[in-house]
């Protein structure tokens, strides 16, 4: 088993390595970290979520996921670094301590395990799930077009061969359904943050419609502060705004769904870079990326803590 101190956060890892390391993290921080299985993927891989909790029952919580698009390797790497940081900073960093003294954090590092395994074994550029599509030879569904928020409208493809294929129906992908069920059953998630790459953006709902989200002003202000914090470390420049206005119309996305479920603080990150390496970001940038992202995450977490609703 890899011990926490020998896991190299500055390197990319396979799913087995990350899952092994998650067990080590739990073993190293038994009073804070536990591992939940929220379901199984299409190819029967376990869908694991790390729970950071100091106790209490059904506390309000923050959801984080990385790697829902499997080829975006910087996100799973950032997820692992972030999990370790949360565990290490509790009791050290007053802001993390304050959040965890009142709230729980759930982090799914590999939200699309089949796709991630496939990027290591067969096709580094694989984005989608690995489900079979009836009537087509093309495999997989875009798991960020499969949520029940503007599902199937413009901003996704109905073609199973497309990288943005929305799937046969909302929540058709077990990887998506598992999160939907988990969030709904929990009932007290207050922030939902989904981490992608690349483009250096911080986005909030909506993506499927140009209609501004009712909380747009507040979300915009949080984004501004989060981006300022992120940029303060290495000067990395981020843009922010609604998905629709900042990039393009995208329907069936996770944060549109979470926002429509009443989770006001719903955000999507698009991590480094802006297009020199794209999905093949060198491993030397993992730690700087994770470090700067952490500063933005803390802004959102603190805001969530200080603005109960």
């Amino acid at each position, binding site marked *: 088993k890899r011990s926490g101190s020998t896991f190299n956060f500055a390197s990319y890892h396979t799913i087995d390595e990350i899952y092994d390391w998650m067990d080590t993290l739990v073993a190293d921080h038994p009073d804070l970290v536990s591992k939940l299985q929220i379901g199984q993927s299409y190819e029967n891989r376990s869908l694991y979520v790390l729970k950071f909790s100091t106790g209490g029952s059904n506390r309000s919580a923050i959801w984080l996921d990385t790697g829902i698009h499997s080829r975006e390797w910087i996100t799973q790497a950032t997820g692992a670094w972030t999990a370790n940081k949360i565990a290490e900073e509790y009791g050290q960093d007053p802001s993390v301590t304050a959040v965890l003294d009142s709230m729980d954090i759930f982090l799914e590092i590999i939200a699309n395990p089949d796709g991630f395994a496939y990027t290591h074994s067969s096709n580094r550029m694989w984005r989608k799930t690995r489900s079979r599509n009836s009537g087509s030879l093309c495999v997989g569904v875009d798991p960020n077009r499969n949520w029940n928020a503007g599902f199937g409208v413009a901003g996704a493809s109905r073609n199973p061969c497309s990288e943005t294929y929305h799937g046969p129906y909302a929540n058709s992908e077990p990887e998506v359904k598992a999160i939907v069920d988990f969030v709904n059953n929990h009932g007290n998630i207050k922030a939902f943050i989904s981490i992608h790459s690349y483009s250096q953006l911080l986005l909030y709902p909506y993506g499927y419609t140009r209609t501004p989200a009712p909380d747009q002003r507040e979300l915009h202000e949080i984004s501004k502060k989060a981006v300022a914090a992120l940029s303060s470390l290495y000067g990395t420049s981020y843009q922010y705004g609604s998905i629709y206005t900042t990039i393009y119309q995208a329907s069936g996305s996770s944060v549109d769904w979470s926002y429509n479920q009443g989770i006001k603080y719903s955000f999507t990150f698009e991590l480094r870079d802006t297009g*020199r390496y*794209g999905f093949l970001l060198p491993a030397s940038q993992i730690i700087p990326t994770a470090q700067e992202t952490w500063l933005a995450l803390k802004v959102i977490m603190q805001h969530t803590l200080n603005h109960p609703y």
Partner: protein
Amino acid sequence: EQLFVGDQVLRITASNEEQIALLRALDEQTELQVDFWRHPASPGHPADLRVPFPSLQAVKTLLESNGISYSIMIQDLQKLVDEEKKAMAKPSKT
């Protein structure tokens, strides 16, 4: 394992809605096997497109004949994939 030898990623900047529509139509031409890393959004907003080596000439010709400007963002994708693999192998050996 799928190889990407000679595949390029093109950074494409459409200057009007017509050019954007043309880029979007590329995605539907399954025989070209292109893959948008960054989708075309609005004029002046760059899109990144991975083009397999066998489709390079056709795609570049199409862009040029429609006056759509592009640059090469990644010259040979397989080189980057190989470098990444090499870097991954190092720590595990250690």
